[in-house]
C-alpha cells in the first residue's frame, strides 16, 4: 500500500477549493544559480548564489532577491526587498530597499527596478539604486535557448555602474564591473536542473584600483524552484 502518495493527496484534497478565484495567492522561490566556481588558482572554493522569491498575485507581488558570492577571504552580496507591480503585459515596476555587503561592510540603497521580457524573449532587469553617497545602475539580461526540450543553454550578462566611488563596496565611479556567463542545464523535472558552464567576471575602470579582477571560471551548480 502506498501510504505516502495517499497521505499527500489527502492533504491536498482537503484543500480542494470551492469558490472560483482566478488569482489565488501564491508564493514561489527560484534559485536560478547555486554554483561553485573554479578559476585563478582557486579550486571550487568560490560559491555563488542568485535567488529570488515572491508572494502575491497576478499584479501585485512582494519580491525578495539575493545575489552574492563567497570565496576564501572575500564575500559580497546584494539583497533586495521590493513591492512589484505589473504595469504592462510583459513588465513589472518594482520599488523597495537594498542592502549590499562586501567583506563585512554594508551599504543601504533605495531601489527602483524594471523587470520584464523584452521582444525576442530576453529576460531583463534594470535597477537603479540611490543613497546619499551615489547612484548606481545594474542591468542584467538572460536568454534561454532550448537545445532540446530539457537541455537549455543560457547566456547571461550583468553590468554594474556607480556615479561615484563607494569605498565600502570596493566600487569606483563609472562602469565598474561586467559579468557574463554561459550555462548548460538539464531539466530532469522543470523544478530541478543541474548545470555546468563558464563565467567571466571583470572589474572596469576606477574599480580596478580596489580589486583588479579578470577571471574566467568554470562553474557547476543547480537551478531549482518550487
Amino acid at each position, binding site marked *: 500500500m502506498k501510504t505516502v502518495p495517499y497521505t499527500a493527496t489527502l492533504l491536498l484534497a482537503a484543500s480542494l*477549493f470551492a469558490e472560483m478565484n482566478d488569482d489565488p495567492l501564491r508564493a514561489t522561490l527560484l534559485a536560478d544559480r547555486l554554483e561553485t566556481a573554479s578559476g585563478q588558482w582557486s579550486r571550487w572554493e568560490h560559491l555563488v548564489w542568485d535567488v529570488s522569491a515572491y508572494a502575491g498575485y497576478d499584479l501585485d507581488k512582494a519580491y525578495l532577491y539575493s545575489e552574492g558570492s563567497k570565496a576564501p577571504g572575500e564575500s559580497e552580496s546584494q539583497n533586495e526587498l521590493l513591492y512589484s507591480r505589473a504595469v504592462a*503585459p510583459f513588465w513589472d515596476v518594482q520599488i523597495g530597499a537594498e542592502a549590499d555587503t562586501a567583506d563585512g561592510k554594508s551599504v543601504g540603497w533605495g531601489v527602483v527596478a524594471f523587470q520584464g521580457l523584452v521582444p525576442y524573449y530576453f529576460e531583463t532587469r534594470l535597477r537603479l539604486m540611490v543613497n546619499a553617497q551615489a547612484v548606481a545602475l545594474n542591468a542584467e539580461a538572460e536568454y534561454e535557448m532550448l537545445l532540446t526540450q530539457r537541455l537549455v543553454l543560457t547566456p547571461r550578462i550583468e553590468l554594474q555602474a556607480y556615479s561615484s566611488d563607494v569605498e565600502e563596496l570596493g566600487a569606483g565611479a563609472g562602469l565598474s564591473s561586467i559579468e557574463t556567463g554561459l550555462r548548460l542545464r538539464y531539466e530532469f523535472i522543470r523544478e530541478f536542473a543541474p548545470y555546468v558552464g563558464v563565467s567571466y567576471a571583470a572589474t572596469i575602470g576606477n574599480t580596478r584600483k580596489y580589486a583588479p579582477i579578470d577571471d574566467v571560471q568554470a562553474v557547476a551548480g543547480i537551478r531549482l524552484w518550487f
Partner: protein
Amino acid sequence: MDDHPAAIQRRRFLQSVAVSAVLARTLLSAGEGGSAPAPIKRRESLMLEGTEFFLTLERTVVNVSGSDVLATTVNGMLPGPTLKWREGDTVTIHVTNNLPVSSSIHWHGIILPFHMDGVPDISFKGIAPGETFTYRFPVRQSGTFWYHSHTGFQEQSGVHGTLVIVPKDEDPVVSDRDYVVSLFDWSDENPEAIYRKLKLHSDYYNFNQRTAGDFISEVKSEGFWDALQHRAMWNRMRMSDRDLSDVTGYTYTYLLNGFTEAEDWHALFETGERIRLRFVNQSAMTIFDVRIPGLKMTVVAADGNPVKPVKIDEFRIAVAETYDVIVEPEERAYCIFAQSIERSGYAAATLAPRAEMHAARPAMDPPQPLTMADMGMGGMTGEGGADTGAMKCGGGMQMPKEEGKKHMWPITPLPMRRGVGTTMKAANPRYRLDDPGVGLRENGRRVLTYADLRNYYSTADAPPPDREIVLHLTGNMERYMWSINGIRYADAAPLTFHYGERLRITFVNDTMMIHPMHLHGMWSDLETGDEARLVRKHTVLVQPGSKISYRVTVNAEGAWAYHCHMLYHMPGMFRKVEVLP
C-alpha cells in the same frame, strides 16, 4: 412506446452498459484511523435509468496511473454513472455532498429553470458539505449531454458523467447498438497545484517548444533568411507558435470511459450492425482529435441535436462538446483513437466483434505549429507576408452569408480594457468555419469542420437578430491571465439580455488558444453558412485569431453562466448573464 416500430425493432438501446472504470472504495471520513484504504477495483459499472436518481459526491481513492490518489467522485465512480432520461419525463435528482467543501452539479446543455442549473452564486448557493440538494425539472430535449461539478476545479478530479436522453418521438438516428464514449484527462496532481504551476510558469507542461534543432531543420526547408524571419516574428511578439495546450500528457493520463489505453475498453458489435457512438469530451483542458482508422464515421448529432448526416474520417471535439456518430464496422477489430491536440498522448479503445480481439493503435500525428492565421494576422494561403504557405485550409475561408450585412442590426457597445491582462489583439480575425484547425490541416483525411454542420431541422423561420454583441476573448499567456474584453470575471459587470429578444453574438479570439465557449440555459444557433440550417450547440469552439457568430433566442428567465470551458481559463474568462424581462 413512443418509438417508431421499425426503429424499435432495430435498436437495442444502450445494450452495453454505460461505463465507469472505477467502482471505488470511498472515504466517508478520510484521514481517520491512519491507514489508507485499499486501492479500488477498476471495472465497468451500471447506467442509472428512470425518473428519480440519488447521487453522492465523495472523496474516493483511485489508482489510474500507478499511485493511490484521491478523486472526487459521483457514487464512487470515475466517471460518474451515466444517467438515462426520457424526453417528456420530469426527473428528480437528489445530490448529496459528502465532500469536505461546497459542491454542485450542473446539467450541461440542458434547457431548464435557472435555479436548477447548478452554478454556485448564480443559480443557487451551492451544496454545502453534508447537505442534499434536490434537482427537479422537466426534460424537454433528447440526445447526448453530460453533467459536472461547477465548483472550483472538482470536475478535474472526477465529478462528471454522461446524460443520455431518449426522444419522446421517433429518433431520427436509427442504430442497433448504442455506446457512450466519454473522454477525460485524469491527473494525479491536485488541480490547484496544476493551476499554481500555470500561474508560475505557463509553459510548465509544454514539452514541444521550439528548439535549436527545429531551427536547423527550418533552415533546411525554408532557407536561412525565411526561417530566421519567421522565427523572429514570433519571438518579437513574445509568443510561441507551439502553445497548443496549457496542460498535457506530462501530467495527464487520457481516459476513455474511465479506462486507459492499456486497459483497452471494448465496444462489441455483431457484423452488419449500425452502431451509435456518443462521444462526450468531459475533460478539464484537453481538446481531442478522434478517428477510427479504417472506418468512416457519419456524424448525426452535435451537442445533442441532430444534424444532417456527414461522412467523415476524423473530428475535433473541444472540451464540453458532444458528437454522435454512426459506424458500420466489418468483422474485424478497430481502434477508437482520440489524440490530444498537442499530441502528447491519447485515449484509445477497441471496437470489435469479440472481447478477446485487440486493435493496434495508430501512430500519433506530429504536432503542427500555429500559423499567422491563428494569430488573426494574414490568413489565406498566399497572404500574410512571411507566413506564406503556412496556412493551408483547403478551399477559401467560408464565412456566414450575412457577414456582409452585419450592420443590419445594431451592435451594443460593451466595456473593453487593454492592459496587463492582454498581450494580443487579432488584427485581422476571420471566420474560419471550414478550417479544421491546427493539427488537422492537410492531413489527407476528411475532417469535420463547423462548415459541414447543418441542422437536421429547418431554422428558416427563426427571426432575424434584434441586435449584436461582440465579445473578445482575451488573455496574457505569459502571466496566465484570462478574460473577456480584457476584463476578468471578478471585475466584470453582468451581461444584460432581454427576454424575448433574438441576439447575434460574435466572438473574436484575441489569443492563441482555442476557447470552447458555453452559454447556459439557452441554445447557441451557430452560423455555419446556411441560414436555413443554423446548428444548435451549447458549446462553440472559437479558433485562435478567428471570429465566429451565433444567434441566441433569449427565452429563459433568470441568471446564467457564460464562460470558456477550459477549466483553468474559466475563473477569468467568465460572465454572468442576466435575462431581464
